[in-house]
């Protein structure tokens, strides 16, 4: 599957979570990530897509490719204009949950990728960016 170098996918319903997993699989294959790294990146994307939908009230996933020291990487951004997170350190703690889940989404995804950035404030939405290097 040929993929666009940059793009955006809406995260507005459950079907979009499935679509984001499929898109991320194609993107991972484009930079020839190993099977284990692909699996980790798709799983992280699945967790973060669900967060965007459930906690952020919907949003989008943007993607781009990166290059550093001759290595290719895949960068994914998950963005919403939802209520935001007041205490980011707490949200990154294993097992802390705002409700329905198990509290693994943010800390778990962080462990699955090479780089993880989060910016959020109450009322200002949330953006999580993850990178996996080849």
């Amino acid at each position, binding site marked *: 599957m040929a993929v666009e170098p940059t793009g955006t996918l809406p995260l507005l319903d459950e079907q979009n979570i499935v679509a984001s997993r499929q898109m991320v699989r194609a993107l991972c294959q484009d930079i020839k990530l190993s099977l284990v790294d692909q699996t980790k990146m798709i799983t992280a994307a699945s967790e973060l897509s669900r967060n965007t939908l459930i906690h952020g009230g919907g949003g989008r996933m943007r993607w781009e490719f990166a290059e550093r020291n001759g290595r290719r990487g895949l960068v994914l951004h998950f963005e919403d204009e939802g209520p935001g997170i007041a205490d980011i350190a707490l949200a990154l703690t294993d097992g802390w949950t705002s409700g329905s889940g*198990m509290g693994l989404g943010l800390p778990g995804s962080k462990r*699955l990728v090479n780089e993880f950035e989060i910016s959020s404030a109450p009322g200002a939405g949330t953006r999580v960016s993850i990178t996996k290097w080849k």
Partner: protein
Amino acid sequence: MDRIPILRMGDTLLVTIQVDMQDQTALTLQDDLANRIATTGASGVMIDISALEIVDSFVGRMLTSISGIARILSATTVVVGMQPAVAITLVELGLSLEGVQTALNVERGMELLRRARQENVLGR
């Protein structure tokens, strides 16, 4: 919405998950399995996930709750065929699938269920 079929083989219920499930599909499977265990009196449930390329925390939680529900309804659950990359990812994600019995493949899963049934007959 997709619905995952549940096959009955003797007193075992067999589920093969072959599609990338929406969250709602996973929840429906959980309810369907609970009902089928109750109506058939099945003593074992085998869930084949060999076709699944990822298991995230939502599906992981579904597998854990199915095992719990089945146990309360007096059935043993075994999850078979997990791909190595999925196992590696699950552990790193922080999901240990506590309380879920697993087997490498269908054959070993069947053996595990057969032994569980015998122990049951002998009154444990």
